């Protein structure tokens, strides 16, 4: 095996540490146990000073000689092994390929190590938090699920990408945008507009909104993937661009905004590298229906899940500011949610020509 004399990376060393846990426990006749930080709301604190979600110190023990955990333990070690293999070969891969790489039938049995990808994905997140390694550092990437367009020049694998000259389609944001992989050569924009949905991003791109208002248009097609969040954060940090977020007016839209701003509950430890505490919420606000004259019939009735989710948001400390409480309560009181697409009811270009210009002029946003 060790033919090449290559220095193991820091992450690789951490992964090998998992094996050491097993070996040393076995020598001491102890049950091999991994301490995995708890990834749940109960182990999250909102750091108001920094405006970030931070992971607490609570950990759960995953032991091998426990009927309920034995399989998970075995799978964790398997996934660690696969990740170490990636490190050695210096390759990146997807969550799904990790699943296929680690799946096989256990010797002398009819049992598979893993049955579905749903079993391996959380294990990777477990390892991320346990080893305090980012997913990118583990060489696991997500799909390229975001687009960017605007007065911006990037360098990707040595290729210059001028995002002002990529037509309507823009540049597809890769999953790993760390400076080693993607450099920002030049940026002349005044702000970043992060749009929840591809449809509205396309509308703005087609109407060359970015040219008139000198901004960067970003979308993540729903919950923005890490690449998009990280890139927005870098633009915010390295070029001091304010970030504005445009999402649907429903609890999920609010949550998307909060993930961009403070980080997610599941991977709170990453928020220090992803979160943009100064991001602003431009819309759709529950007040917009009235101020922009959206007819009631383009609204959608809140269902039980929406209502439950909205109540949950009300209880999160990072939504405790008065304007936010009012915003969410107004939505609950109206009993309606609005999609961004509903603006087309007034005019196909209403978003570009009326809505956003007025919002930006009036500085009508929430913090």
């Amino acid at each position, binding site marked *: 095996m060790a033919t090449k004399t290559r220095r193991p990376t820091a992450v690789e060393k951490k*992964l090998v540490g998992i094996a050491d846990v097993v070996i040393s426990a076995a020598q001491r006749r102890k049950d091999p146990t991994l301490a995995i930080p708890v990834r749940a709301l109960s182990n999250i604190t909102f750091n108001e000073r920094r405006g970030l979600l931070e992971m607490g110190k609570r950990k759960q023990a995953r032991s091998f000689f426990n009927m309920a955990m034995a*399989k998970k333990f*075995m799978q964790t070690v398997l996934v660690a092994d696969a990740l170490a293999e990636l490190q050695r070969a210096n390759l990146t891969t997807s969550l799904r390929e990790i699943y296929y790489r680690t799946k096989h039938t256990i010797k002398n049995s009819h049992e598979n190590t893993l049955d579905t990808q749903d079993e391996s994905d959380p294990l990777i997140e477990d390892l991320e938090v346990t080893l305090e390694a980012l997913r990118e550092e583990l060489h696991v990437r997500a799909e390229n699920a975001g687009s960017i367009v605007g007065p911006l020049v990037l360098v990707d694998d040595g290729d210059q990408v001028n995002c002002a000259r990529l037509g309507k389609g823009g540049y597809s944001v890769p999953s790993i945008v760390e400076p080693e992989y993607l450099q920002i050569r030049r940026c002349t924009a005044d702000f970043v507009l992060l749009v929840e949905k591809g449809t509205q991003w396309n509308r703005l791109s087609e109407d060359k909104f970015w040219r008139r208002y000198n901004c960067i248009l970003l979308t993540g097609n729903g919950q923005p993937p890490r690449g998009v969040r990280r890139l927005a954060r870098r633009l915010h940090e390295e070029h001091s661009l304010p970030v504005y977020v445009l999402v649907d007016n429903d609890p999920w839209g609010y949550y998307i905004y909060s993930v961009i701003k403070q980080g997610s509950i599941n991977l709170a430890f990453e928020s220090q590298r992803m979160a943009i505490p100064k991001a602003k919420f431009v819309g759709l606000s529950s007040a917009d229906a009235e101020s922009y004259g959206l007819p009631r019939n383009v609204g959608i009735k809140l269902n039980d899940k929406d209502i439950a989710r909205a109540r949950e948001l009300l209880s999160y400390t990072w939504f405790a500011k008065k304007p936010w409480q009012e915003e969410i309560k107004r939505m609950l009181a109206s009993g309606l949610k609005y999609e961004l697409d509903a603006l087309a009811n007034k005019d196909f270009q209403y978003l570009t020509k009326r809505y956003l210009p007025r919002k930006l002029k009036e500085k009508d946003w929430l913090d």
Partner: protein
Amino acid sequence: MASKTSSRTAKTKSSAAAKTAAARPRLATAPAKPAAASAKPAAAPAKSATAATLEAAARKPPVAKPAPTVTAVEMGARQRDISVSEFFTKNRHLLGFDNPRKALLTCVKEAVDNALDACEEAGILPDVVVRLEVVAQGETTPPASQATRFRITVTDNGPGIVRQQIPPIFAKLLYGSKFHRLRQSRGQQGIGISAAGMYGQLTTGKPVQIISRTSARAPAHYFEVQIDTKKNEPRILEKKQITWEAPRGTQVTLEVEGRYQKGRASVDEYVEQTIIANPHVKLTYVTPEGETKEFARTFEQLPASPREIKPHPYGIELGMLLKMLHDTKGHTVSGFLSGDFSRVSPAVGEEIVKTAGLSPRARPRDVHGEAAESLYKAIQTTKIMAPPTNCLSPIGESAILSGLYQQIKGEFYTAVSRPPAVYRGNPFVIEAGLAYGRGPEAADSGAAKKDVPLAEGESNDADHELARVIRYANRVPLLYQPSACAVTRAVLDTTWRNYGIAQSRGALPAGPMVIFVHMASVWVPFTSESKEAIADYDEIHKEINLALRECGRRLGAFLRRRERAHSEFRRRNIFELYIEEVVDSCNRLKGGRLPTAKLKEQLQTMALKLTGGNKTDQLMGRNGGGPEGLPHSIIVTPDGVEGAVPPGAAEKTA
């Protein structure tokens, strides 16, 4: 094994009406009957009536034309007798002849029931041959699945029938020995075989052929009879003495329109189920396809002969009481009570008379109206012993076990006979049995199939088949109308989940399981004349439930024991399997420089300590022995059979 509830015919509803019509043919009104004969005399007055209305119409403006009126005299002229045979010719579905497939089954069933009843009553171990043949149509003989006409021949080794009785038995409805007695038998009403003959006559025009011989010294008689439906009397087409190879017995041949189709509620299923409940019968079945199936006798003991009993006072209705009062030979009411009923001693009889406020010397015939009613009430309020139960002949736990074990492959068998109980004054016994599993061979083949690694979305779970319920009344399998039957209902509302069997709400329990339920009674309350479902009396339902629960408890104990052993085994197995994986992964993580054998050994010692070591072996082991504490049960494992295996069965499985 999957059994599904069949769609119900609308028969149950009409059966009550049919019963009263059959019982009181004289009182029945005309509308159902063909008016061909009465058409002529009625024609003349009808004409004059129309003429009158025409005149009336001419005089008055034609506003509302009155309907042609019929006088009471004219209506009276149309009233006439309906014979039972005519009634059942028109309503043959009431007797189970609604479609050709069912008709074929009903004919076989009636003939076999009669044969078995006769043999058992005469104390002869039955030896029955059932032969189904396709009747050629012209030159060609269609294949069995296409054929529409069949010849059914049922031969038994019973006592035979005396010459004079042959025609009425086979060609007169409601003629029989069983209706007037309270005695457990398959047949009850004296309709079955003659109805089958009538059906044959109706669909093929062929008479019933009978050969019967009462002893080796007596000659064999051959009869061809038909039923005169108008009079409900036999018509003899042919009678002669013939030579017959069998020394004793009866052979019936019917030619009927039918359809032979295998599967649920088929003749084949009937034969198989009959054998399960009657392991003392030797049965040979020749299918229409020419295959001969031999079912050997596996239980060499004839069921105890049931005794005839008098009715129990709790079980009769007022009308019946009036009739008995009228017909009795007793001189006093108390004498009538103690003489014509069971469990009424002279003292109890006098007590009833006293409670009813009747004169001790009153003659039964003079008790009518209010007096009879108070007598009836007095009977209900007086405490009378439950009816005797020696009149019943249950199959018995060992015979049920034997039957199930012979016919159904499984891993666990059990049987329960309940003590006798009473509904409406009729004693009855409920017996239940259970066969669970697919048999050790099936379990092995299942394991072999699992050798292929599973892809995403695949699972090892077997198809979720539901239990099959097989129902019997006086040893006769009931194949139709499962959902109308007290048995099915009791199976449904037993909570099988308590015994480790999955059951969806309102559904049969799930699993490879056959549930056997038998009701033995002097009078089984069927929901219709075609005897397809047992009426849901509370007392019956409760007894079935109790029997099923006992079966369930034993099955639960069996399953739990097995599960415990499996899970201990699995526990250790899991650690052992995963240790391999973990050690391999660690080795790769360490760049292949790990002393794997040492690590593996360290982990394995820990695993063994944690899973109880040798104790598990004992739990799993062969020293478990026997169907522990489970009475009347058989457990089949790949290593052998434990429990009350019938002696005849040993060589069959070997």
